[in-house]
């Protein structure tokens, strides 16, 4: 019997809903033929956006969407994507797959997508190959409500009022595809760009996110915070979970993987906790009397592409292993909500750890989708301290805690989310709830299956949530967590 404690008397604060954010890059079939099919498509759409994709993302509770990249952002010139579609530039997407980018999905289309999704837009600006003027104009084009050249141009392209885009990324991976910069150089650029990214409405101030570190590059975060900290609101962090040694040419398959790679993947994903804690410490050390957030604006699994698909498109399947990875990471972000203000899993549709896969007019929801849907009650809820007794499970050097937990108190009651990482052993759970009185009801849901189980076209419902029996006790509730499962308990 594993004892868990959820303590409503202690909290790190509210869980920013944006922790449940997503990322959509002009890459492979994420935007084109994934989210956006165009108005003339035979696939049902509203203003070019697939209605089935939009409906599924809304049901999942998508709070924020990052766009247009990624590496693509630092080659993207926003003016190429406005105005009449027939006269927009056609370019080759050199970052991903070498396919032609016709710019039919641009600023207006992205903000129309966010309107349909009822989510916040997060735009990554071009610092690597753009100019300060270009970026400054983009903010003015989107946010200026009064009279100005940019506002007039926006109106002439059909959008009368400002969109008031809040979240702006100052470049992406400036240490790599965003310009191969040293942190000192980027920090100065960040100060310069930040100076000209203006607020056009005091009621809608913009929120500036600096290009942050890759994985454990703590010096990057230190230099950015030290030199540019007072010019930004948050700094980002990117970390991808690879099953094998970190060799990007041999990452391992998304399906049909050996048991050892199930556990190596989980062990590597736990590194996120160390990264978040260490980068958070640096941020706190240098933030002074301002609160600077940490945006984990790229995270998730990265496997070899599905055999026979374009290697530049990063199309991978998604199994119960991915569900466990997402549950562990979301628990980590919840439990560090005092600094983690946003996270964006990569990427929304058809790319890397996607929540939705499409093939023509068909669509399926991945195990990762179901975890996000089961966890959505954490959004904007008050985080609660939680602890669960664990043992180690795994193979060889790849040992991980068998259970992982987070909890919060929101409108629907107390939400306790627990992952059972063991692929062989169920776990009896005895969860004590302190500081909230005796529970009147508890409702359990679970996502479970063999660690390699996945949904495929023609078998879309292989992995889906089901009811999980839970029993109210004097001090909380009891339940049995199946092997390889993610469970969510709502206590009222």
């Amino acid at each position, binding site marked *: 019997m594993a004892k868990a404690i959820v303590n409503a008397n202690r909290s790190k604060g509210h869980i920013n809903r944006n922790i449940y954010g997503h990322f959509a890059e002009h890459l*492979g*079939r994420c935007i*084109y*033929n994934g989210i956006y099919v165009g108005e003339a498509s035979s696939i049902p759409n509203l203003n070019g956006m697939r209605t089935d994709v939009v409906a599924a993302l809304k049901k999942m509770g998508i709070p924020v969407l990052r766009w247009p990249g990624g590496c693509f952002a630092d080659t993207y010139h926003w003016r190429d994507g406005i105005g009449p579609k027939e006269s927009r530039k056609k370019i*080759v997407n050199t970052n991903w*797959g*070498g*396919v*032609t980018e016709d710019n039919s999905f641009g600023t207006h289309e992205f903000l129309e997508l966010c309107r349909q999704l009822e989510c916040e837009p997060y735009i990554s600006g071009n610092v690597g190959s753009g100019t300060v003027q270009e970026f400054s104009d983009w903010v003015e084009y989107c946010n200026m409500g009064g009279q100005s050249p940019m506002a007039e141009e926006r109106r002439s392209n059909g959008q009368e009022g400002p969109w008031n885009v809040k979240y702006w990324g100052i470049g992406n991976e400036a240490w790599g595809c965003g310009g191969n910069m040293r942190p000192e150089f980027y920090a100065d650029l960040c100060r310069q760009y930040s100076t000209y990214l203006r607020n056009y409405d005091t009621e809608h101030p913009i929120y500036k996110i600096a290009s942050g570190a890759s994985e454990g590059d703590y010096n990057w975060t230190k230099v950015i915070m030290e030199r540019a900290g007072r010019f930004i609101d948050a700094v980002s962090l990117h970390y991808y979970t690879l099953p094998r040694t970190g060799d990007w040419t041999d990452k391992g398959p998304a399906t049909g993987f050996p048991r050892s790679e199930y556990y190596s993947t989980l062990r590597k994903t736990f590194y996120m906790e160390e990264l978040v804690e260490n980068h958070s410490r640096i941020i706190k050390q240098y933030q002074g009397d301002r609160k600077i957030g940490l945006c984990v604006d790229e995270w998730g699994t990265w496997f070899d592409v*599905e*055999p*026979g*698909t*374009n290697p*530049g*498109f990063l*199309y991978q399947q998604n199994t119960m292993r991915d569900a466990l990875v997402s549950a562990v990471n979301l628990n980590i972000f919840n439990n560090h909500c005092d600094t983690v203000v946003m996270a964006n899993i990569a990427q929304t549709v*058809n790319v890397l750890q996607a929540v939705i896969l499409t*093939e*023509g*007019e*068909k669509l399926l929801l991945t195990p990762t989708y179901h975890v996000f849907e089961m966890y959505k009650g954490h959004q904007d809820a008050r985080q609660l301290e939680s602890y669960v007794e664990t043992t180690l499970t795994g193979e060889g050097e790849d040992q991980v805690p068998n259970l992982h937990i987070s909890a919060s108190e929101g409108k629907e009651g107390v939400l306790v989310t627990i992952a059972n990482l063991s692929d062989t052993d169920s776990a009896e759970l005895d969860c004590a709830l302190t500081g909230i009185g005796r529970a009147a009801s508890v409702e359990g849901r679970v996502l479970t299956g063999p660690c390699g189980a996945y949904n495929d076209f023609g078998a879309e419902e292989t992995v889906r949530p089901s009811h999980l029996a839970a029993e109210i006790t004097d001090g909380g509730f009891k339940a049995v967590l199946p092997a390889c499962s993610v469970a969510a308990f709502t206590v009222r």
Partner: protein
Amino acid sequence: MNSPSCKRCLLRELDGEYFKSIYRYIASLPGEQRSSSDEYARRLKICRACGDLHNGMCAQCGCFAEVRAAKRRLACPMGRWGQEE
């Protein structure tokens, strides 16, 4: 990828070196999973006439057309050819 941009081309007409591994993959498929040669040719003829084929890849599923056509149980994502019985 430095191959020329070509709508309605198959891989074998583009960059043979770059895509050799794809043909090795097709050759490695077990016989019972592979389409018959007549069906393979029929499928690719339909792909060749399709606006979704670009640089040998189907824009609707991300698959190289030759690979998808070679797998007996797969169908065109837009329903232009079906599974082989």
